[in-house]
């Protein structure tokens, strides 16, 4: 499954990644991603039959903590809103989901 210009639908990938790209960027990124992914496709030549995946290397499983509030890690409303561009009555203003 070597990717080439025809298999990378850059507009679709950008949409999934929530990135806006211009027509000029579309052409540039298509060619750049094709060359990078073409190189990475080498991974498919490796025989991994019967190999289990590794997602993390800590050797740890199921780290629990008490389900209690840690006040040291709480922000005041002022702190939480401090970096927001748009606030209203102590709330974050977000773009409308429904028009």
């Amino acid at each position, binding site marked *: 499954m070597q990717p080439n210009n025809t298999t990378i639908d850059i507009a679709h990938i950008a949409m999934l990644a929530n990135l806006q790209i211009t027509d000029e960027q579309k052409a540039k990124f298509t060619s750049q991603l094709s060359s990078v992914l073409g*190189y990475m496709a080498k991974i498919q030549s490796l025989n991994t039959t019967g190999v289990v995946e590794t997602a993390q290397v800590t050797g740890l499983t199921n780290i629990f903590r008490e389900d209690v509030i840690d006040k040291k890690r709480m922000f005041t409303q002022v702190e939480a809103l401090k*970096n927001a561009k748009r606030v209203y009555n102590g709330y974050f203003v977000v773009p409308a989901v429904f028009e």
Partner: protein
Amino acid sequence: MLLDKTIKELSDGLQKKEFSSEEIVKECIGTIKNNDQIINSFITQVDERKILDEAKQSDKMRKDTSSVLHGIPFVLKDAYVTKDIRTTSASNVLKNFIPPYNATVYDKLLSAGSILLGKMNMDAWGHGGSSENTDFGPVHNPWDTERSAGGSSGGPAAAIASRMTPFAIGEDTGGSIRNPSAWCNTTGLKVTYGRVSRYGTIAYASSFDTVGPMGKTAEDCAYILEAIAGVDSNDATSSSMPVPAYTKGLQNRLEDVTIGIPKEFFGQGLDPEIKSAIDVAVKEFEKLGVICKSISMPMFEYGIPIYYLIGPSETSSNLARYDGIRFGNDRTNFSDETMRRIMIGTYALSAGYYDAFYHQAQKARTMFIDEYKKALKECTVLIMPVMPTPPTKLGELMNDPLQNLLADVYTVTQNPVGVPSLALPCGFTKSKLPIGMQIVGSMFSEELLLRIGYQYQQVTSWHTMKPIMT
């Protein structure tokens, strides 16, 4: 100058009142003024009056029992959140972000009594190996200011080399501590995954990211690691393995050590001057009683694909949170390199490609872990180059996205496996550019790596060389 001294020498001098913390900080302020207009290693400097006050305070408070790091200034890669101090990750997305809390590593250094000088330039989000993918202008290499300082922790390494700070905290996801250390002639340690808390670190690839020390010597790194390592209830992936006294065993000799030289890491593509510098280092180790032997790690060629499929996949998920609503600017502020990495990851995780790319890379990762285990059963540690070439001219790597990724070929294989690696200076090219090597060990073998580095630095002087500008 005071800043040529190691952490231990500075600490001893402070205890004996040969000089004060205020004098060290003044010297830092002076070298920053003289050198950083050219080097561009700082993104944000902490107010001069504030750090001078902290130094004076520290001189008053010092006790016999104070930490070795007490009154010693340091810098943080701008990937760590610092309460009320701007934190950017070198991206316009976070250009004006003032964090409301501290990263654990920063809190630990504050409790030790260290003084933060500033937040350092880097490749945005850790995405790069040359500190050119930054929205704050590239970092210039103090050894040749037309060249790259390496990356992504280029600011911290360049600042240590040009004597603006005694030490730094870097972050290593695929070589980001080791590779600027090699290009700037400093010493840096990529720790075992989980050895140091990642709480408050701006995530690149969460299953690869490590927080580690950068200094002039292996001994410096040992003192820093003693202060920052350990389990943290705020990071569930931090390890509860006991933290050894890393500085205690440094004097022990190396007769128990076997160094493996994986032949695949010394093949085509490695600059001949780097290869011969490491050959000389191997001879130096043999003089120290170490057995050195050639081994084979045939999985090497899959290192780049494993790293550049899993890393971008994780980053595409981590960076999805930056929408400019609660903090930061919107997604139109990502650089081209960051957009490429987000899209490579999105592609590798998308329907139809998930099995062939992401899934396959996670299986290959298991095979790589087995290969490292096998090599490290045969030998105590492994020696490898850090970078395939000496520092490149600024612009060279940025113009070719694939070449830019391939520059990490020797440093990307340790992070998916989790093993630690110490990068340290081992020579210079004919044109006086620094060469580094790395010593890689088993999980949680930092004590051994630091001892090997320390013993090597007792019989060599590469780490004491500094650029002309200082």
